[in-house]
């Protein structure tokens, strides 16, 4: 852990939340309720192995292959299961598609439900009370604060994940990307575009 030394030469303690997590962890391990290596494996999985790159690969393929796109829309859960992208926080998944007349955005007003199995852990703002309450009440204002302007003639659809269904947005494919491979397209699928708070990254803004 990073040590912060204050000007008087003493070391600041870590933040309260970090101390609390350490205390709970060492108690669970000392009492033999949790295997420490297993805990580290969980952390490693969500820090390094399961994340938005997984979802981006699925979306890019949906852009490139109309049949796959239709399969995702018809049976998100089954299609993801075939790809091994199922499991905890992702047992039932519905894909919703942005079009030239509809913009979708996902929220969990009750807590912070999120498709971990496909996108990894949720960003901090997704769990914040401000996002959770305002996304349903004033979705257009919230989207604008993310830099996403939805024209008035486009319908906004907000999906409140109150049950065990996890929603994932298929963003619109950016213009001028016809010649890109699926791997290159995946670079344009940013995490927030699958939540619906942003659009897919335009080609010129993506790292070449």
């Amino acid at each position, binding site marked *: 852990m990073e040590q912060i030394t204050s000007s008087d030469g003493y070391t600041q303690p870590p933040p309260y939340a970090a101390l609390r997590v350490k205390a709970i962890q060492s108690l669970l391990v000392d009492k033999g309720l949790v295997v420490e*290596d297993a805990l*580290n494996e969980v952390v490693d999985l969500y820090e390094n192995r399961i994340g938005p790159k997984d979802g981006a690969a699925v979306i890019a393929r949906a852009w490139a292959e109309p049949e796959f796109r239709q399969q995702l829309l018809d049976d998100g859960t089954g299609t993801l299961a075939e790809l091994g992208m199922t*499991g*905890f926080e992702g047992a039932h998944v519905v894909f919703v598609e942005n079009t030239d007349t509809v913009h979708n955005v996902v929220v969990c007003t009750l807590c912070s439900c999120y498709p971990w*199995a496909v996108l990894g852990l949720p960003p901090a703002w997704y769990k914040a009370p401000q996002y959770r309450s305002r996304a349903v009440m004033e979705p*257009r204002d919230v989207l604008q604060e993310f830099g996403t302007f*939805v024209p008035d003639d486009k319908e906004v659809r907000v999906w*409140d994940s*109150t049950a065990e*269904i996890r929603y994932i947005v298929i963003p619109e494919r950016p213009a001028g990307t016809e010649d890109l491979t699926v791997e290159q397209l995946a670079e344009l699928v940013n995490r927030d575009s699958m939540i619906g708070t942003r659009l897919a990254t335009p080609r010129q803004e993506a790292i070449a």
Partner: protein
Amino acid sequence: MRLLQANEVHDAIRTPTNFTRPDAPPTRFSVGDRVTVRNLNPTGHTRLPQYAKGRTGVISIHHGFFVFPDTMAHGEGDQPQHLYNVRFTVGELFGKHGGNPDDHVYIDMWESYLDEASS
């Protein structure tokens, strides 16, 4: 107690829990039906958001026959029910609204949260 080992973590995380149940009775509602949300205020766990109570919407999806968290959370069994997605206009939920009148909020709701709309 058997402890989860490090080499079992990946498979455990990748094994989905099936929240659906077989032997579903007939549904009370069909896609397109207008429904009004009951003004339920249980003392315990519920998945019914406050802002939808008393509001009228339209059934947009029938998800299937799902376990009921409101009883599961209290050790009262899974008591499965049909789960629907209900579409509300933002105006119906929150009154005057600056965006498009077709802006909608879609909320997943168990059958016992809903009544047929009166008009």
